[in-house]
C-alpha cells in the first residue's frame, strides 16, 4: 500500500510543482530596439487589413529544446527554429547523426501565427546543465541529464517538486533563477525576430510560455500568451505561483497593469487529463468558488484548448453526454498518472470536458453572478519537436515529449504512442495578421478549433437574419450587422427565437476532404437549475453516405465544398440561459496510424506482417478512421441581468 501510494505520489510530483519559492519581481524585460517610424506596437499597418476579418490559422502550444521533457527526448530545435518551421522552412528533427538530423519535416502551407510555449519550471536548471561554463554544470543531476536523459526526465522533474530546489541552484534557487533569464530572453527574442512587422503581415509570433502544475497528476497546465514583447522579467512558473489563482494574482501584479503595456491571457489545456479538476466547481484545493474567483477566472481565461496531441477535450460519450460524435481522440486514462501506471488511472469525469463546463457555467452564473467557464475554443499541437502546425494525419512526426522517445534512434514502427495524435490548429477571425488584432480576437473569443484541416467557419447569432442570407454576397456584413459572431453574447431579445447563420468552407489544401455536415450543439439551464444539451443536424448529409477504406485510405461518397444555413432554434425559451456552438464534420478519413500501418503492409490477420513497433496498428481500441472537425466558440444568451 505504501509502495503503491509512493508511486502515485512520485507520478504526481513529476508533473506538478513545488510551493512558491521566492517573491517574483514586477520588472519588465527591456523593450527591444525598434526601427524608427513604427507605431507603438512596433509595426506598420497591414496592407490587407479588412474590417470583416479573415481566418488566420496558428498554433499556440509549441515546445522546443528549452522544455526539459522535449530536451530529454532529443529535441534540439530552439524557439527560433520553431518559428522558422511555422513560416514554412524545412526543419530537421531527431534522431541526429552527429549534427545531422535524420528526419526532416516541412509545412506545405505556412502558419499565420504561432507561439512557443516552453515549460517555465526548469528553464534555469536545464540551461545550467547544458552550459559547461555555468556554475552547477558538474552537479550530479546535470551529469544524469547528460548521460541518461530519460532518467533525468523522471528524476529532475520529480526532485524539484518537493518545494526545495537542487543544491546546485544555491540559496533560494538564486543561481537557477538567474540562469532562467537566458532561456526566457531567448524565447522573447525569437518571437520578436520572427514577427513580420512589414506591411505584408505574413506572420505573427507571440511571446508565451507554459505554466505546468499538475497536483496529484491532475493536469492543470495553462499557456500564458502575451499581447506583445512587454513581458515580465521572468515567466511566472508553477514554482512561483502554485495555484491558478496565484498565477492570476502574479500576472496582475507584474503584467496586467495599464501603464506598463504588458497584457496576458491564459489558455488552459488538456482538461481531459485533469481528473475532473480543471472544470470542477471548486478551486483545485477544494476551496468553494467565490464571486471574486469566478470573476477573475472569466477575465483571465477567455479560451480553452480543445484538441491537441494528447487527446480531445470537447466531450466524451457517457460523461455528461450521449452525443455520438463525442468519441473523438479519447484517451484511455483520465490523468497523467493513468498513462504511466494502470492503478493510477481515474475514471473520466464531467469536470474534464469543455462541453460540461460550458453547461455548468450557466448554473454558476446564476448562483455567483459570473460565468467562469464562458470560454471560447482553439486547438493546437503541443508539439515537443518544435514543429508548430504539423497536423496532417498522413505526415505525423510524433509528439516528442511524454510519449515514446526516439531521441537517438529512428522510431521503430509508429513515431509515437498510439494514444496520441497530430493535434489541431487555432483559428482566429482578425482584421489583420498582427499581434494586436490576433490578441483582440482571442480576448473576444472570435476563435475556433480545427483538428488539422483548415476549414473556414463563420458562425453568427442574431434575431432577424433573412432566410436567404446564404445566397447573398453580403453574408458576412449582414452577419456582423445583425448579431454577434462566435464568442459573443446575444444582444437583447428582439424576436421570438434566435437565428443562427453558419457558413463552412472545406479546406482547399491538405487532403481536401469534403464536408459532411454542420451541427449546432445547444446547452441550456432549465427553470429548476438543471443543465441540458441537444445536438441538431443543421445542414449536410447523414453518416454512412461517404466512406473510407481503412486498408487503403481511399475515400468515396458525396460531400460538400461549402455548407451554409440560417437556422432557428426550435426549442428556445426566453427565460432560459443558453449557449450554442457549431461543429463542422468532414467526411471520414484515415487516422494517422493507418497511413503508416498500410505503408508497412501490416495485416492484422497475419502476424508475420506485423513488424517491430507495429503492434499498435492492430490495437482495436484506437480507431483506424476518424472525422476531422471544426468546433466554434459558443454564443451565449443571458435572459436576465445577473446580480
Amino acid at each position, binding site marked *: 500500500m505504501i509502495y503503491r501510494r509512493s508511486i502515485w505520489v*512520485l507520478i504526481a510530483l513529476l508533473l506538478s510543482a513545488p510551493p512558491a519559492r521566492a517573491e517574483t519581481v514586477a520588472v519588465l524585460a527591456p523593450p527591444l530596439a525598434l526601427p524608427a517610424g513604427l507605431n507603438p506596437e512596433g509595426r506598420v499597418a497591414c496592407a490587407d487589413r479588412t474590417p470583416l476579418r479573415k481566418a488566420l490559422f496558428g498554433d499556440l502550444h509549441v515546445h522546443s529544446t528549452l522544455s526539459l521533457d522535449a530536451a530529454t527526448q532529443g529535441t534540439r530545435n530552439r524557439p527560433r527554429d520553431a518559428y522558422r518551421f511555422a513560416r514554412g522552412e524545412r526543419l530537421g528533427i531527431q534522431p541526429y547523426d552527429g549534427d545531422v538530423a535524420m528526419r526532416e519535416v516541412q509545412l506545405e502551407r505556412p502558419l499565420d501565427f504561432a507561439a512557443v510555449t516552453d515549460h517555465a519550471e526548469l528553464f534555469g536548471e536545464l540551461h545550467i546543465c547544458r552550459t559547461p561554463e555555468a556554475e552547477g554544470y558538474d552537479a550530479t*543531476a546535470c*551529469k544524469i541529464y547528460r548521460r541518461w536523459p*530519460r532518467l533525468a526526465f523522471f*528524476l529532475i522533474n520529480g*526532485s524539484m517538486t*518537493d518545494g*526545495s530546489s537542487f*543544491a546546485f541552484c544555491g540559496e533560494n534557487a538564486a543561481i537557477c533563477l538567474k540562469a532562467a533569464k537566458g532561456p526566457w530572453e531567448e524565447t522573447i527574442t525569437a518571437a520578436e525576430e520572427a514577427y513580420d512587422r512589414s506591411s505584408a503581415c505574413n506572420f505573427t509570433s507571440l511571446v508565451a510560455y507554459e505554466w505546468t502544475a499538475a497536483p496529484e497528476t491532475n493536469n492543470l497546465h495553462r499557456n500564458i500568451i502575451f499581447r506583445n514583447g512587454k513581458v515580465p522579467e521572468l515567466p511566472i512558473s508553477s514554482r512561483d505561483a502554485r495555484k491558478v489563482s496565484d498565477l492570476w494574482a502574479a500576472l496582475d501584479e507584474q503584467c496586467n497593469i495599464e501603464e506598463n503595456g504588458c497584457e496576458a491571457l491564459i489558455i488552459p489545456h488538456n482538461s481531459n487529463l485533469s481528473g475532473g479538476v480543471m472544470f470542477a466547481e471548486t478551486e483545485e484545493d477544494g476551496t468553494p468558488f467565490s464571486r471574486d474567483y469566478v470573476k477573475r477566472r472569466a477575465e483571465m481565461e477567455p479560451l480553452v484548448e480543445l484538441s491537441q496531441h494528447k487527446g480531445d477535450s470537447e466531450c466524451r460519450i457517457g460523461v455528461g453526454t450521449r452525443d455520438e460524435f463525442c468519441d473523438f481522440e479519447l484517451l484511455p486514462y483520465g490523468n497523467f498518472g493513468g498513462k504511466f501506471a494502470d492503478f493510477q488511472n481515474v475514471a473520466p469525469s464531467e469536470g474534464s470536458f469543455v462541453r460540461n463546463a460550458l453547461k455548468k457555467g450557466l448554473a454558476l452564473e446564476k448562483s455567483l453572478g459570473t460565468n467562469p467557464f464562458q470560454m471560447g475554443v482553439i486547438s493546437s499541437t503541443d508539439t515537443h519537436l518544435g514543429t508548430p502546425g504539423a497536423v496532417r494525419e498522413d505526415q505525423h512526426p510524433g509528439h516528442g515529449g511524454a510519449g515514446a522517445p526516439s531521441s537517438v534512434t529512428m522510431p521503430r514502427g509508429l513515431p509515437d504512442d498510439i494514444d496520441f495524435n497530430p493535434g489541431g490548429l487555432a483559428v482566429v477571425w482578425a482584421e489583420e495578421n498582427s499581434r494586436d488584432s490576433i490578441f483582440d480576437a482571442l480576448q473576444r473569443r472570435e476563435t475556433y478549433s480545427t483538428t488539422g484541416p483548415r476549414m473556414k467557419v463563420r458562425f453568427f447569432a442574431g434575431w432577424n437574419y433573412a432566410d436567404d442570407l446564404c445566397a447573398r454576397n453580403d453574408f458576412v456584413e449582414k452577419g456582423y450587422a445583425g448579431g454577434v459572431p462566435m464568442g459573443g453574447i446575444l444582444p437583447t431579445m428582439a424576436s421570438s427565437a434566435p437565428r443562427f447563420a453558419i457558413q463552412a468552407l472545406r479546406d482547399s489544401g491538405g487532403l481536401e476532404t469534403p464536408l459532411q455536415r454542420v451541427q449546432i450543439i445547444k446547452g441550456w439551464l432549465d427553470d429548476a437549475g438543471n443543465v441540458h444539451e441537444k445536438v441538431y443536424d443543421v445542414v449536410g448529409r447523414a453518416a454512412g453516405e461517404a466512406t473510407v477504406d481503412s486498408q487503403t485510405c481511399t475515400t468515396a461518397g458525396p460531400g460538400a465544398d461549402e455548407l451554409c444555413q440560417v437556422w432557428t432554434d426550435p426549442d428556445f425559451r426566453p427565460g432560459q440561459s443558453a449557449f450554442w456552438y457549431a461543429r463542422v464534420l468532414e467526411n471520414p478519413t484515415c487516422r494517422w496510424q493507418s497511413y503508416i500501418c498500410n505503408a508497412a503492409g501490416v495485416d492484422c490477420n497475419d502476424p508475420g506482417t506485423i513488424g517491430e513497433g507495429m503492434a499498435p496498428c492492430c490495437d482495436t481500441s484506437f480507431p483506424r478512421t476518424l472525422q476531422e472537425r471544426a468546433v466554434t466558440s459558443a454564443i451565449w444568451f443571458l435572459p436576465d441581468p445577473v446580480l
Partner: protein
Amino acid sequence: MSSVWSRCSLWLSLLLFLPVPFWAFGTGWASVAWLAEISGFTAIIFLVDGGLVATMMTATLVTQTILWAAALFFASARIVHYVPGSRRAGFIATTGLLLLAGSLLFPVYATSFVRDGQPVNLIGLFQ
C-alpha cells in the same frame, strides 16, 4: 582455485555481464553493475538534494540492485558447489569469457534509459 575465489570470480562475472530484469518506470534488462551505477547516481541526488522522488527512485533501484547481487551470489555459490575442484578454474574462466563475449557481441540489454530502449551490447549499455 579455492571455492571462495571461484565463487567470487563467477559472481563478479555475473554481476558485470549477465542481463537481469528490473523495473524503473518501465521494465528493462541490464547488468547488475549498470544498475549499481545508476543507483549510485540516484543515491547522490538523494543524499545531496533530498526529496521524496529521489528517495523513492533510490530505494527502488538500490533494492533491486541488492536483491540481484544477493541472488547472483547465491547462484554462484550453488554452481561452484557442483563443479569439481579440479575443473573450477577452467569452468570459471570459460563462463566469464562466454559471458563477456556474449555481452559484447549481442545486444542483450535493453532499458528505456539507454538509446531509447533499443537493445544494446555491453559497450552501448555503459556509454
